[in-house]
């Protein structure tokens, strides 16, 4: 009898702990906010911006981005030094620390979306699939909104 009640107690405690932990964890381990693509006319590549928050307790790495609406998507960072500007391909991806937010914003990190597969207009929705390391599921589909070229 003593053993049975002991086992029961452990089960109840474990269930309680699980319930508590699951209640603490956010619904989504990764949060993407304000995803937008800045429309550029003439078939030139466009920039994609957003901010990404890692709600897990371990670092994650954004390693890839792809979209059916574009022939190729790269993760880039604009670097300005001594009055000159150039782009750096982030071939190691982008690390987002546990609980941290990384902003992809003008003149910094951005997606370079190349070769639009159809004519886009302001207000259109474009899906981008992100690939991650260090989190499950490893793929996230995010809907970006096409915004005017003059927006920030």
């Amino acid at each position, binding site marked *: 009898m003593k053993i049975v009640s002991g086992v029961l107690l452990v089960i109840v405690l474990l269930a309680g702990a699980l319930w508590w932990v699951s209640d603490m964890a956010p619904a989504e381990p990764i949060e993407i906010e304000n995803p937008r693509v*800045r*429309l*550029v*006319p*003439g*078939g*030139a*590549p*466009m*920039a994609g911006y957003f901010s990404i928050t890692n709600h897990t307790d371990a670092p994650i790495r954004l390693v890839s981005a792809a979209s059916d609406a574009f*022939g*190729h998507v790269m993760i*880039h960072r*604009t670097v*300005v030094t001594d*009055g*000159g*500007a*150039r*782009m750096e391909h982030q071939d190691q991806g982008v690390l987002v620390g546990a609980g941290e937010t990384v902003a992809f914003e*003008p*003149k*910094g990190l*951005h997606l*370079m*979306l*190349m070769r639009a597969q159809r004519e886009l207009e302001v207000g259109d929705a474009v899906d981008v699939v992100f690939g991650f390391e260090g989190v499950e599921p490893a793929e996230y589909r995010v809907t970006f909104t096409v915004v005017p*070229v*003059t*927006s*920030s």
Partner: protein
Amino acid sequence: MNLPRLGLMLAALLALAACGEEGWHGKSIEGLMPELEFRLTSETGETVTEQVFEGRPVAMYFGFTHCPDICPATLARLVAAVRRLPEPQQERLQLAFVSVDPERDGPEQLRDYTDAFSERMLGLTGTQKQLKTLTRRYRTTYGYEERREDGSYEVSHSSAIFVFDADLEPRLMLLDSLGVAEIAADLERLLQ
């Protein structure tokens, strides 16, 4: 020293740093560089010189259309600043986008691109020789990086906007760190 006082001092220092020599937000280049002179191809396909601006002040940026991030960000800030100017000043100021990537930026591409920002923005490009002559004149450079598998490539370029007065004398370099209000203040003062 107490914290609020330190904060005030820092704010004062920042304000001083933000307002450079002679009270400009940008960098004054008056007398430091030669007057504007070039031979380039315009977005209409015609060969043009600095006379295309017909004696109007010019804000000129060197970039390329396959530049998705900093070029649109800079041109958008310039156009937003121009919209804050009094109407007569807006009409006087000419905007110019010089592509240092003539291989990909033909007249039509340039026209589509500049029209997306402003109808007052003229797209220009030229041969490597013409572009080198112009960029060297203003002590700036550009260059091409290695081609990717699909043939695309990156271009490094100046991040500043060069402003010339109605006599085509260089006056200001508006660095990419300036905000819309600072650009507008400098342009308004220059155009007075």
